[in-house]
Each structure stands twice: as C-alpha cells, then as structure tokens.
C-alpha cells in the first residue's frame, strides 16, 4: 500500500474508533455535563474522520468513498493504534484513555499543521482547534479526579497503570512513518515523544499520580493491522447496518 494512504488511514481510523467508543457512552455518562461533553468530542472526532478518510479515498482512487472505507473494511485493514480500542471501562478508564490520546493527538496535529502535504496541513489546522479544547478538558479532569478523593485517586492510578502499555505504539515509527518523515509530511518522533512525555509529567504530577516508566515495554501492532479481539466487536456494531443493507441512506 502507498505509504501516504496508509498514514491517512491511521489518522482517520484513530479518530473513528475513538469516536465510536465515545458514542457508546451517549446517554450513559456519569453526569449530564459529561455525557454531553463525550458526545461532542465524539462528534468532533467523527468530523475529523471524514476529512482523513475522504482524502484517503481520493488518494486511493479506486472508487471507494469515506463511508465505504469506514463501513466495509475488516479489522485487519484498520490502522488505528491499540489505545483507542481499549474498553470504556469505568469513567477513570475513559478519561485516562482520552487524556493520553488527546496529548498525543495535540502534538501530532501541531506537527502536521506544518506538513509538506497541503491538504494534510489544512486538515490538521482545522482539527487542532478542536483537539486543543479536548486536551484542556481531559487534562483538567485528570487533575480533578487524580487529586480528588482516595477512591477517585486509586481508580485513576489503576487506569493509568493499565493503559500505559498502550501509550507507546504511536512513537514506534515503522516504514510508513519514516517515509512520511522523509517526505516532510509527518513530524519526527523525537520531539513529538518528548513533548508528549513532558506534558504528561506535568499534568500527572499535579494530579498526584505516579507516571510509569516511559521505557516500559509497550504493546504494538494496531498501526499495522494487528488488533485486539475488541476491535472486531466495535466494528460489528458500527458496521452492521451498512453490511446488512449496503448503501442504505437516511
């Protein structure tokens, strides 16, 4: 597969799968305000998905559109990182996953605003405004819950410890990532990772949470299409209608 197409699918699939997971919480949030926030973040991510997959479909040039890519690819063709397919779990798990994702997402979008690919730079410039707001909110909640009650602190620490092994895959660059860096499309990994870790350290410190070692062993494979069993269930629900009734419209 063309490296840039693969790279676009990664961006689109990350946003799409996380959006789908957040959508599952619509009507089930722990408070009305949180419910609305999760759904709105999901909506932003879905909008971003359309821009990424729309570009991917054009670049591929095989007559597929964004919907076809979203609803008619199987798990092995999905390129999202493993972090976004982790279960919603408790609200601590949901928010910690969001915070880890938002932090990485913010710095990646920041880098992509300077992409040599004009279309990618435009999508990033559109997205980063929304991502900035997401990160501000999730970081704020991590501090409030981490530095909250004994119970909320314990839940946040457990969530962080359990999600940590999924926080490194984004920085394990493979041939696709390297090709994108060489073409000036994507930012180099070193600065990206350092910014990510610095921001995490600052927020987690304020949240009185203990940051696990950045050198810990990290899970990998999502970017290359090797997913956990969970993605199949997520896709089964998300794709059911278009699989059962191909081309169905509102």
């Amino acid at each position, binding site marked *: 597969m063309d490296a840039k197409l693969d790279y676009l699918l990664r961006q689109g699939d990350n946003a799409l799968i996380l959006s789908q997971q957040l959508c599952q919480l619509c009507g089930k949030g722990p408070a009305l305000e949180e419910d609305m926030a999760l759904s709105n973040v999901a909506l932003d991510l879905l909008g971003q998905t359309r821009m990424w997959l729309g570009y991917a479909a054009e670049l591929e040039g095989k007559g597929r559109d964004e919907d076809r890519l979203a609803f008619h690819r199987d798990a092995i063709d999905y390129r999202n990182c493993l972090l976004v397919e982790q279960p919603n779990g408790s609200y601590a798990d949901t928010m910690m996953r969001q915070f880890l994702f938002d932090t990485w997402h913010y710095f990646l979008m920041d880098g992509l605003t300077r992409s040599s690919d004009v279309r990618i730079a435009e999508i990033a410039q559109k997205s980063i405004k929304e991502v900035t707001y997401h990160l501000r909110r999730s*970081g704020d909640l991590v501090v409030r819950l981490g530095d909250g009650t004994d119970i909320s602190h314990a839940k946040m620490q457990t969530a962080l410890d359990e999600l940590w092994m999924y926080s490194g895959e984004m920085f394990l660059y493979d041939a696709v990532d390297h090709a994108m860096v060489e073409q000036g499309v994507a930012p180099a990994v070193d600065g990206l990772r350092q910014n990510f870790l610095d921001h995490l350290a600052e927020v987690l410190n304020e949240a009185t949470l203990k940051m696990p070692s950045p050198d810990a062993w990290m899970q990998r494979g999502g970017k290359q299409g090797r997913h956990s069993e969970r993605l199949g269930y997520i896709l089964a629900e998300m794709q059911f209608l278009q699989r059962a009734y191909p081309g169905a419209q509102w």
Partner: protein
Amino acid sequence: MTALDVSIEQVWSWLGEVADPEIPVISVVDLGIVRDVAFEGDTCVVTITPTYSGCPAMQVISDSVKEALLAHGVDDVRIVSRLAPAWTTDWMSDAGKAALKGYGIAPPVQQAIDISGLHAGIRRRAAPEVSCPVCGSPHTQLTSEFGSTPCKALYKCLDCREPFDYFKCH
C-alpha cells in the same frame, strides 16, 4: 434567470437572510460561514466553510443556501466546501454577536482559541470573563464545557441565576 441579471452584492444580501439552522437569529453570513460568492458562467458558486469539523448543520446550511437562491430565481447554484483557512469566531460580525446576545446566548468574548501551545494555558482553563446575556453581570460560572452544540458551553449567572449558553471562542 441568468448571471447577468444578478449582482454578487445582491446574492450576498440574499444569503444574509439565510438563518443558521441551530441558532435562527444569526445568518450564515454573520456567522462567517459563507466565504465567497462568484459566478462561473451562469452558475452561482457559493463557498462555505464548516464551523466545527463534525457540525451536522452543514448539510442543512448547504440546502438552505440553495433554496434561498432558488426562491430569488437563481436556479443554477453550486456549493463548494472549503477547509482552509479554518473557520474562527473572529469572523463573526458585530451584528451577529449582538443578535446572539439578544437571543440569550453570550457571544465569544476573546479572539480565536489559542492553539499556540501548552504554556498558553491549554490545560488550565483560561476562563474568559463571560457576561450574562440577560442581566449583564460579569459574575458567571462555567457549568459545562459543552452545551447543546459543539460550538457552545454552558454557564450560569451568579447574580440573576440565569443558566445560559456561551458561544465558545474557536
């Protein structure tokens, strides 16, 4: 009707009467969504830009623009969606901001959201002072970072106790 019969200024003025589907007191022109109007032969080309990337109102806005122009006899209309430069609340007109306030929605108080970096208070809410659209009091409090649409947050007035929408800086 052909292009020769209609001026671009006339089209802009018609579009100024097309209401935003979510906030009907503000037009799509005052909101800054319409970026350009041009004629290509007999085709009237209207360029619009999304507010938030996932804003579900865009399709309705696109249809409303076509309907409004058709009502004035312009039946050959093409809508183009343009991504860059990204929409910002800075493009909202003063008339639009006044209309929002009159409708009970506090208009954006600052310049566009600061994406410059973490040191600019990305995490700590650089909580802007939002005045109550009802009584004008600056003693207000954020109750929810998101409201009924992605472009709004929920506030409450600590003086007159009115809960209200705030159109976020973006």
